[in-house]
């Protein structure tokens, strides 16, 4: 069942992005930035965690989960070390996306030549 909801919820988040492209004529960079901020706010309200329980990868794969993970790491550290944790804990949970992008970006640039 989680496979079905992963597909549906992930698809719906992409449709929201597509509507921002087509209806509000935003650039991809604007759209993704707004979605990330939106994810951060949702986690601040405590709504993103239930969505992950419900939809699995449907909630963790879209870029909104990046904002969610940033807030999550910050709150975890803030719990342990007080207000300074908000700054130091930021990348605690979400290191995977950025480090993977950097590592595979460099490897990709070593392996592949630009096309066209």
């Amino acid at each position, binding site marked *: 069942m989680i496979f079905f909801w992963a597909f549906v919820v992930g698809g719906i988040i992409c449709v929201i992005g*597509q509507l921002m492209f087509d209806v509000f004529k935003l650039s991809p960079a604007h759209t993704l930035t707004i979605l990330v901020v939106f994810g951060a706010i949702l986690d601040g309200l405590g709504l993103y965690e239930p969505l992950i329980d419900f939809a699995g990868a449907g909630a963790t794969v879209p870029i909104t989960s990046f904002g969610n993970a940033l807030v999550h790491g910050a709150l975890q550290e803030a719990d342990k070390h007080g207000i300074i944790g908000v700054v130091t804990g930021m990348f605690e949970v979400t290191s995977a996306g950025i480090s*993977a992008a950097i590592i595979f970006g460099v490897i990709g640039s070593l392996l*592949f030549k630009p096309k066209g």
Partner: protein
Amino acid sequence: MADEKKKKLPPKAQAYQALQDKKEEKRPIVKNCMMAFLVGGTICFIGQIIMTFYIHFFPFTEQTAGNPTTATLIFLTMLATGFGYYDRLGQFAGAGSAVPVTGFGNAVISAAIEHRTEGYIIGVGTNMFKVAGPVIVYGVFSAFIVALIKTILTQWGGM
């Protein structure tokens, strides 16, 4: 262009704007949304398969399996980007290929590959986050604000 700005233009430019608005191709919004839904849903579905794999064969829980899944998806994106498939997918999938984390990976990796001719430090290093940079910058900044407000409310406000 915003209506207010349009009024300040000379008449000829206004006429041109009107013509441009008329000639602008209407975007097939419903079709685009369907494609975004199908492709985005499929990428998340593949993500769920990878996630289930990590939960069953490695010591990850439902909460922690998101990170290795993200890394695996970005690895697959590297291959798809390098062989030129991701670009073709993006042409008909729109946000369906841009919104999942694979789109973020594609933005970083394609920028890295594109600028390799300018050298690895200046070309790859400086241009890698040209497109994906704003996502990280405002993701981190908004997360800071949200977490700060929440921490103040919970720790000092007694909520």
